[in-house]
């Protein structure tokens, strides 16, 4: 060690290994960057952070403030005096309550259906299929994710149309309505539910299941008391995806929902045609509050810790 470090080549400037003593190799700006960690960090952070803060955080804060303003019914200008009128409207008016419950109901139904379908599929993929089949199945689940969202909704509009495939099979089409919305949304978000459940199942060691079997647990019991508890984080993740995605969607209901409306439609109409941005902002607070309540409740159970 001492022999090499005393070799003449190491004494020459520019060859020393201590960055602070480095000679002419690095330019002054680069030396400054190297020494000042905070400078490097702030150069890295400033652009993306400014973007996120200016575009998104400000927009969210402004949304909250706007929901406390109102629109002058004569001039249709925004009146910037604080008022809870928008929220009072939401509480008093029957329409908003109905649409809120309808939206939550659809989101819940989609989530339950997707989890029920995803559980056995994810289990088969992770624990029964051979590695080669597993890779194939993962591709089969991932591929529809790349297909356009609108194409998928459109394809259900075609399948469920009068004289379409659903009628032809003899199953009969439910027609355009809430059932069609639930089918379509469950179809679109299914891969988002399968993947996290599959990922958490893959982490369950096979030996654990074999040990339980060797100790005499029937497979139903292994499922209930070993597999399921380990799956909860994956199920929660998938359920949050499908619930949030369904709640924030209003295009599907336009395309296959007949005359039904979801919360998103009311937001869109008020932001555009009805020209009442403050009311639109107030309606948008409903999904925000629902998601916050949901996430806090789930956090309490500890399911988010190992996401």
């Amino acid at each position: 060690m001492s022999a090499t470090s005393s070799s003449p080549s190491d004494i020459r400037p520019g060859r020393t290994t201590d960055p602070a003593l480095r000679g002419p190799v690095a330019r002054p700006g680069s030396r400054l960057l190297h020494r000042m960690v905070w400078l490097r960090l702030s150069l890295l952070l400033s652009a993306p952070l400014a973007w996120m803060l200016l575009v998104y955080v400000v927009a969210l804060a402004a949304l909250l403030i706007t929901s406390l303003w109102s629109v002058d019914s004569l001039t249709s200008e925004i009146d910037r005096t604080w008022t809870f009128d928008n929220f009072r409207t939401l509480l008093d008016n029957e329409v908003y309550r109905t649409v809120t419950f309808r939206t939550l109901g659809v989101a819940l139904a989609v989530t339950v259906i997707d989890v029920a379908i995803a559980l056995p599929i994810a289990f088969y993929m992770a624990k029964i299929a051979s590695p080669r089949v597993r890779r194939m199945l993962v591709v089969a689940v991932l591929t529809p994710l790349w297909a356009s969202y609108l194409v998928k909704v459109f394809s259900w509009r075609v399948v469920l149309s009068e004289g379409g495939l659903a009628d032809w099979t003899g199953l009969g089409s439910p027609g355009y309505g809430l059932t069609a919305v639930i089918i379509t949304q469950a179809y679109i978000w299914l891969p988002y539910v399968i993947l996290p459940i599959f990922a958490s199942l893959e982490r369950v060691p096979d030996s654990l299941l074999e040990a339980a079997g060797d100790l005499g647990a029937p497979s139903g019991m292994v499922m209930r008391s070993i597999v399921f508890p380990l799956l909860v984080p994956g199920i929660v993740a998938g359920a949050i995806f499908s619930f949030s995605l369904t709640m924030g969607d209003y295009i599907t209901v336009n395309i296959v929902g007949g005359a039904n409306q979801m919360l998103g439609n009311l937001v869109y109409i008020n932001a555009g045609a009805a020209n009442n941005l403050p009311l639109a902002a107030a309606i948008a607070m409903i999904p925000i509050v629902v998601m916050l309540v949901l996430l806090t409740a789930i956090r309490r159970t500890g399911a988010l810790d190992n996401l």
Partner: protein
Amino acid sequence: MTLSPLSRRVLAGLTFGVLALIYVPLLVVVANSVNPSQSMTWPPDGVTLEWWRRAADSAGAREALVTSLQVAAVATALSLVLGTLLALALQRYSFFGKNAVNLLVILPIALPGVVTGIALNNGFKGILGVDLALWTIVVAHATFCIVTVFNNVQARLRRMGTSLEEASADLGAGVLTTFRLVTLPQLRSALLAGGMLAFALSFDEIIVTTFTAGQGATTLPIWILNNMFRPNQAPVVNVVAVVLIIFSIIPVWLAQRLSSDVEGVR
């Protein structure tokens, strides 16, 4: 685990059955693109290329496609730069508020689409007082595309470790030289995967887009939505849908080729 052969078979049947069903609606769309019936009754009673001819002549669809490609390209470029910077900052340094920044990146995609849409709509129209246009779509798309680039680059940086970068610095390379010659080449496939996802996400987005698109700013999803309900345009929309299905095979194929390099999809 000791599952009876019967339950294994039931599970296999269910899995393959559902996965096959996932493709049925898409295949119906493909078949309907040559269905002579304008209302797309099933089964088709013949084959026609009329709709494909009409789609090829549709100036509206072509213009919308170009608009979508432009929006997606700019939004992807922006999110590549911003997402990489952010991933470097969060993976290589620790600082106060790191978790908050992490949450902030995920937020635009974690909150329901209408929330992000109306927040940006209100921000542009109500607060900034600007008219919605094409660039407002780009800003909105870049905002929620950052997370895909960020996720891919961060995962790669974590796996890479810092030893090569340290070696480069010890050999006298400056910070920027190290980034250009050591860090960036290792990030290449992660950037490709993240960029591809960002592009696909932007190209396909409709909910936030409807809230941030100005008059005349028609992306392909908006064009599809506007024309889907017109009986004489629906078959043309169907052909566009088939083209999009064919397009969507490209990233899957690319991801397969890069498979050892690509870190999952999201």
